[in-house]
């Protein structure tokens, strides 16, 4: 249970600035996901919150108390690492017990907490095993169990699912969501996978090049991206961007513009408010839907998500309709232009 505030937080390694002026206010018990492309600084930001790195500028506050100078255990955090980082020479039981022993927790209470965590994560029968005798998913659960037993105020996850195969990832995603409802800790979760971000988060923080690009609920980010970066990052396949000009006679506050439209909103073969003509480059049939790549003579092909099997010959001409209500407009700096401005 903790409200976490970041005020003007920055981090530099030598002359490289990896985090620049981050201001965030995370509510108590919130599930916040830091998402962004690799190298955007999301893991560094998490490590700053954890206390594994010192901030170069700004303040981090837990429940109003400045924690800049506190060590990770003093901050009351627990962390699940990407590689799990289990102690290989200790059994599952000892792994979960290690932190409690160091904290000199009362023996019986510690034992109870470990058993409880093991029960929640279905590790009861594995307590005597060594990490090398466990599967990837089980190791992941031990890593989470080790974090639970610490009864932390803040739970930190650093890309915890990226080492698991696809099926297990979905299963663990659901378990983590369940865990969040069950524990009353604030959780911060770092991932580069926007599906994980969309499904788990109460709020998402999109980071790029060490800066926060937008903070909001998954639906807000999907429906009202603040800029071209967020628009392109959230959603799969990613949003299409088309160069555009204003019709003559409209007073334009911005010069260059781009129209953004999501693949799922494009209409294949039926004209809409606006239409473009192109040539089919490729069709990827996924069963329930098909992704159609249409060459418009631009750098990138237009991607259309079509429900069902799109039965189109390659190289064939095709019309794609753009419904006006699903289009976004971005100015030369990549900022999202409000709809009212041209409505």
């Amino acid at each position, binding site marked *: 249970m903790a409200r976490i505030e970041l005020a003007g937080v920055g981090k530099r390694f030598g002359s490289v600035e990896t985090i620049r002026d981050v201001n965030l206010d995370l509510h108590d018990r919130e599930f916040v996901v830091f998402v962004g492309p690799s190298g955007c600084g999301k893991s560094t930001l998490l490590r700053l919150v*954890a206390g594994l790195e010192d901030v170069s500028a700004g303040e981090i506050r837990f429940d109003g108390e400045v924690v800049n100078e506190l060590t990770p255990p003093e901050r009351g*955090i627990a962390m699940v690492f*990407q*590689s799990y980082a289990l102690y*290989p*020479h200790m059994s599952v039981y000892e792994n979960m017990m290690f*932190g409690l022993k160091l904290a000199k927790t009362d023996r019986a209470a510690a034992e109870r907490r470990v058993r409880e965590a093991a029960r929640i994560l279905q590790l009861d029968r594995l307590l005597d095993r060594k990490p*090398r005798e466990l599967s*990837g998913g089980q190791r992941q659960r031990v890593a989470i169990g080790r974090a639970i037993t610490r009864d932390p105020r803040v739970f930190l996850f650093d890309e915890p699912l990226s080492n698991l195969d696809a099926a297990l990832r979905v299963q663990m995603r659901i378990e983590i969501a369940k865990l969040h409802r069950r524990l009353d800790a604030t959780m911060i979760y770092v991932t580069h996978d926007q599906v994980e971000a969309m499904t788990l988060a109460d709020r998402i923080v999109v980071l790029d090049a060490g800066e926060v690009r937008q903070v909001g609920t998954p639906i807000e980010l999907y429906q009202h991206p603040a800029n071209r970066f967020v628009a392109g990052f959230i959603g799969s396949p990613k949003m299409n961007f088309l160069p555009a000009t204003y019709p003559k006679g409209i007073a334009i506050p911005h010069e260059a513009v781009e129209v953004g439209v999501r693949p799922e909103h494009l209409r294949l073969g039926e004209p809409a408010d606006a239409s473009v003509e192109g040539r089919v480059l490729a069709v990827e049939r996924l069963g329930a839907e098909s992704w159609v790549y249409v060459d418009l003579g631009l750098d990138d092909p237009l991607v259309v998500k079509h429900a069902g099997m799109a039965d189109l010959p390659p190289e064939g001409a095709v019309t794609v309709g753009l419904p006006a209500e699903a289009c976004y407009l971005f100015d030369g700096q990549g900022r999202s232009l409000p709809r009212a401005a041209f409505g």
Partner: protein
Amino acid sequence: MSRRTRRRLGRVGFYLLMALIVLYAVFPFYWAIVSSFKPGSEMFRIDFFPPPNLANYYAVFAEQPFGRNILNSLIVASAVVVLSLALGLLAAFALGRIRFRGRSLLLFTILGVSMFPQVAVLSGMFELVRALGLYNRLPSLVLSYLIFTLPFTVWVLTTFIRALPKELEEAAIVDGAKPFTIVTRVFLPLLGPALITTGLLAFIAAWNEFLFALTFTLSGEQRTVPVAIALISGASAYELPWGNIMAASVVVTVPLIVLVLIFQRRIVSGLTAGAVKG
């Protein structure tokens, strides 16, 4: 020549070469054992399987304080191993895990120490030993042996510690472990194979060392095994008691072989398996 004959010939050649290497490595030791069983009169008669005659062994222990010498060697070698592993581990943690100015310079200086030949440091070491009042006492040997055991202990352990995943250390930090706890409770168990290997090498180096042991000890009671063996003398200046010398060599070689055999399996085991995904 068909493929099959060629392959067969190749295999024969391989085993011949193997046999040659084994012979080259093992024959001197075998010859030492054989010689140690022969009384002086038969020493120069070629006899590959003499009846075991333990007279030389009795003589070695009777004519000088050889038991005491072995004990000295054991004390010195064990102290060297314990000290160099303890110091090496702490140094390796700092050198492998903590970033500070001049770290690689320090590492190379440590390595540089081991490049000086022993004779070069002998006189300086002698002055130091005298100044510390350690002359003709075992601690002088422990102190001087650390010169050549510490550099490689530090280097090997630093390499191993660097290879341990950083997240493991961070997990321990999050669990509330202080640096000393991390070294002793997390790193130490994982470094087992590395500690055994370097410890064994340090033990062998200390067990075999001759020059410092000869220079820093005076009385027979304080000698270590290599010096004691070298100073075994016969009845007259013209006689070298080969039988006694061989018996003594066999006695002090056996412990080393046993040690290597005991630990050889641990040396190769991969303890970190399962630490990080896999």
